[in-house]
């Protein structure tokens, strides 16, 4: 991508900071800014479409009208929870159960505030939307070291793009399901697993650390064995604690080494 001069222009640090408020961008750099948002986000956004289609089909499968796929995906906008919600609606689950499931499945989002670059997003409405649209995917794409330098436009553009592709996929699934006998297809929900696998490999490339990967998998397997019903919450909690302990040990080790060097000198 460095062969494309307009793209290289966009990744220069001063243009990443974005224009001063109220100053309109010249058309050339506006196009470049759009490209800077769309290029890295497009594969993940497009990857969400088959998953959205699977969700739209599930909406029909559970006896809801197709447009509920649009409403769920636009308003709730929390992929894995939406799959669960539709199944609960079909069994007329009480609202208290809906609330509890939401807290348990989306409880992981409280951890995202640790590293999502909300401080880069300017404006009250923009910040409100940015927290509303803080999904696993938008977290995965912004939480790395690079994201801390992204402009407000770039972060919001990414989030809007992911939101739109999720709603479009779900709506498409609802419409396809009313038109075609796609119920015969099994296993479309693997798109969600594939998405997380791809995001994990990309996260590893950004921050290659096999020990982190091994610790995370150990926490996931441990949580699955100990408390399978609350696997996500237990695994996140355990992984956070393990990382904090590792960070603490590393700092103590540094202090210890510094101490012995002082003694030797």
């Amino acid at each position, binding site marked *: 991508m460095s062969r494309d001069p307009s793209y290289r222009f966009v990744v220069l640090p001063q243009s990443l900071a974005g224009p001063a408020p109220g100053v309109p961008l010249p058309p050339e750099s506006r196009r470049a800014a759009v490209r800077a948002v769309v290029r890295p986000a497009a*594969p993940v956004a497009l*990857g969400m479409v*088959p998953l959205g289609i699977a969700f739209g089909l599930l909406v029909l499968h559970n006896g*809801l*009208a197709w447009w*509920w796929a649009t409403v769920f995906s636009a308003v*709730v906008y*929390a992929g*894995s929870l939406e799959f669960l*919600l539709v199944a609960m*609606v*079909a069994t007329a689950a009480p*609202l208290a159960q*809906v*609330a509890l499931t*939401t807290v348990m499945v*989306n409880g992981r989002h*409280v*951890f995202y*505030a*640790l*590293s999502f670059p*909300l*401080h880069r997003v300017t404006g009250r409405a923009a910040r409100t939307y940015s*927290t*509303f649209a803080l999904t696993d995917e938008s977290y*995965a794409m912004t*939480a790395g070291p690079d994201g801390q330098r992204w402009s407000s436009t770039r972060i919001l553009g990414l989030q809007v793009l992911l939101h739109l592709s999720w709603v479009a996929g779900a709506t498409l699934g609802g419409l396809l399901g009313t038109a075609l006998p796609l119920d015969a*297809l*099994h*296993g*479309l*929900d*693997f*798109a*969600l*697993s594939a*998405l*997380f*696998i*791809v*995001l*994990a*490999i990309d996260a*590893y490339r950004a921050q290659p*650390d096999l020990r*982190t*990967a091994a*610790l*995370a*998998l150990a926490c*996931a397997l441990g949580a699955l064995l100990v408390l399978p019903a609350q*696997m996500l919450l237990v*695994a*996140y909690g355990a*992984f956070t604690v393990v*990382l*904090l302990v*590792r*960070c603490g040990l590393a700092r103590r080790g540094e202090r210890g080494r510094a101490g012995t060097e002082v003694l030797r000198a």
Partner: protein
Amino acid sequence: MPEPAYVAAVVGVAAALTWGLRAAPFAVLGRMRDSVAVHHLSRHMPLGVMLILAAYTLRDIPTTTPMAALPIVAAVTVTVGLHLWRRNALVSILAGTAVHVALATALAGV
């Protein structure tokens, strides 16, 4: 078909709680952004979180017979292999999903 008012209430409850869970922690955690521990977490959480989510979505892998696990194992292999090779997220996701749908649909008919 479920009552529209009930479905709307489900959407409302889930949306409000989800937004609350996403937004509220910033009030507390935002001020800790400069700490070494938070920096350590922000560097290592993305990989860990994605692996945990991948494991979570694959937790119901059927292990009764080797044949039952085949669609998942094959699809994961294709997704990982393609992504290591081509580095194209869309290709990896679509191919992995296609393999899973083909095998799961074929085996469901058996």
